């Protein structure tokens, strides 16, 4: 243990005496009374003592916030994963060879023009049957398919590069143009290109789930604080009899709610790290790089907000006899 030099001790004592001269003189008179420079006084901005109920509330709210954090992490992962391949998505429109060349030779040109005239379409490339057959041969790892035979069977293909796949009527316009000239749209590709709308729907669901969980958390904190309020009913009653203002009586409980929610938020954020660390290899393979730091303010302030809301519910109707003027 480090020994404090005597001159430092004397300096500290002198400083302390300068700060609290009356307290120090009282101490010298009443040597039996121990020092307690920071007594625990009720009301105002002083927090009530924490007990097992508060600890349990923190644990439960932490689990709920952890679930909320998990939901938004999943949203983040989904958004990044979709974003990693969505720019490469092309929509293919197929035109039967009969329609494309033999009977209606100019139908293919008309379809190409119709597709190009759609505002959100960036480019339209015509893929010949030979090119498609060569690609298919490569895709099937040189499966020794007779390419000439394949060329005869493959339809004429248009590859559409999209400028804004989030546009409302883009895919309807493509379908409309294709159907006018007897073409068919690859609907699987359309579904993939519209992944952003699934994400938007999932985002609504995530908000809804977060709100439901927030309400549950607020009620849990409210219930805990209500128990504390009941346990301290005498103290509240007495403070009101002594002329305390309502904010003075309620503030400790509101602060407690804030602290409970905020600490649960921090705990939940810490508990999300194992998920990130445990799945990092898998996620990096999917070109997903999750950031937990972006969730920290949300969990901290969200937790605090929920706790404060719960405290406001708990303290909304605290009635003491003899104290309503």
């Amino acid at each position, binding site marked *: 243990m480090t020994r404090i030099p005597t001159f430092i001790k004397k300096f500290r004592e002198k400083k302390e005496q300068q*700060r*609290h001269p*009356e*307290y120090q003189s*009282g101490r010298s*008179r*009443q040597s*039996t*009374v*121990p020092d*307690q*420079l*920071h*007594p*625990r*006084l*009720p*009301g*105002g901005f002083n927090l009530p003592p924490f007990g097992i109920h508060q600890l349990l509330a923190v644990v439960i709210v932490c689990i709920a916030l952890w679930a909320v954090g998990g939901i938004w992490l999943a949203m983040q992962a989904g958004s990044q994963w979709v974003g990693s391949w969505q720019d490469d998505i092309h929509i293919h429109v197929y035109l039967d060879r009969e329609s494309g060349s033999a009977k209606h030779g100019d139908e293919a040109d008309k379809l190409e023009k119709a597709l190009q005239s759609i505002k959100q379409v960036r480019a339209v490339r015509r893929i010949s049957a030979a090119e498609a057959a060569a690609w298919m041969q490569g895709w099937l790892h040189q499966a020794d398919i007779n390419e000439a035979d394949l060329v005869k069977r493959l339809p004429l293909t248009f590859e559409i590069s999209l400028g804004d796949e989030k546009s409302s009527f883009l895919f309807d316009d493509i379908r409309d143009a294709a159907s006018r000239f007897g073409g068919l749209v690859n609907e699987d590709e359309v579904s993939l290109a519209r992944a952003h709308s699934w994400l938007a729907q999932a985002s609504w669901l995530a908000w809804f789930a977060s709100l439901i969980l927030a309400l549950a958390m607020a009620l849990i904190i409210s219930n805990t604080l209500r128990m504390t309020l009941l346990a301290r009913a*005498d*103290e509240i009653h*007495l*403070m009101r*009899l*002594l*002329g*305390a*203002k309502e904010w*003075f009586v309620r503030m400790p409980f509101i602060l407690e709610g804030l602290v409970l929610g905020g600490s649960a938020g921090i705990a939940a954020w810490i508990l999300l790290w194992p998920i990130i660390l445990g799945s990092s290899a898998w996620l990096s393979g999917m070109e997903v790089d999750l950031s937990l730091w972006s969730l920290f303010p949300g969990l901290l302030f969200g937790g605090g907000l929920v706790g404060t809301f719960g405290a406001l519910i708990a303290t909304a109707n605290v009635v003491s006899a*003899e*104290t309503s*003027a």
Partner: protein
Amino acid sequence: MTCAVLVDTVWLMPEKKPLIHMQQLMLRYPTGKTALSGITLDIKKGQFVYMIGESGAGKSSLLRMFYGGVRPSSGSLMVQHLDMRDANDAKIREIRQRTGIIFQDHRLLFSRTVFENVALPLRVQGWQTQRLIPRVRKVLEYVGLADRLWSYPQALSGGEQQRVAIARAMTANPPLILADEPTGNLDVDTARRVLDYLMDLHRNGATVIMATHDLHLLESHPGRVVQLHGGALVGDDS
């Protein structure tokens, strides 16, 4: 016994007006029971008033009205120049901050130390901790409990607990002290000592109104005696 504690604040009030003025005061509870009826009484600043009467005579109800615990049903009541019938919450809070209340069951907070109990009125009035520590020490020294500063009330005797309640009532230096049977649960000697403290506060300028059953105390500690019976004023020796 010295009481230098109370001399540092002088409560300035017009001398001619009584501190408490009642005119045909009536209190009827929502249950229909009439607790007080037709009480007309003035209590001047600096008086020591005993309020006597049988159980249910209305002593406690009258004391409760003085700090806004209940409102008069009819008649008028002025406490420290405030009309208690029309006073809003903020005014009632002001009156309570200027009134020291001692309850029969002393209403100490058993989960708080003696210091915290006595400091509560100062805390309510916004005193900073470092400022209130010497004040609480001083008040507890006055009631002879300076060495019990950090004890819990449970560790104190009945008399000591009542002295803590007195210390709490006087710590904010109020001009009016209301005591509701403060000696009710105490033996004769301890009751006399408690009354000594109240008399000392009175000598130093506080107006003390004390509801009591202990008529023998009136001989050793004289004061104005107001008698209630069945909610009506039946005697006043002023």
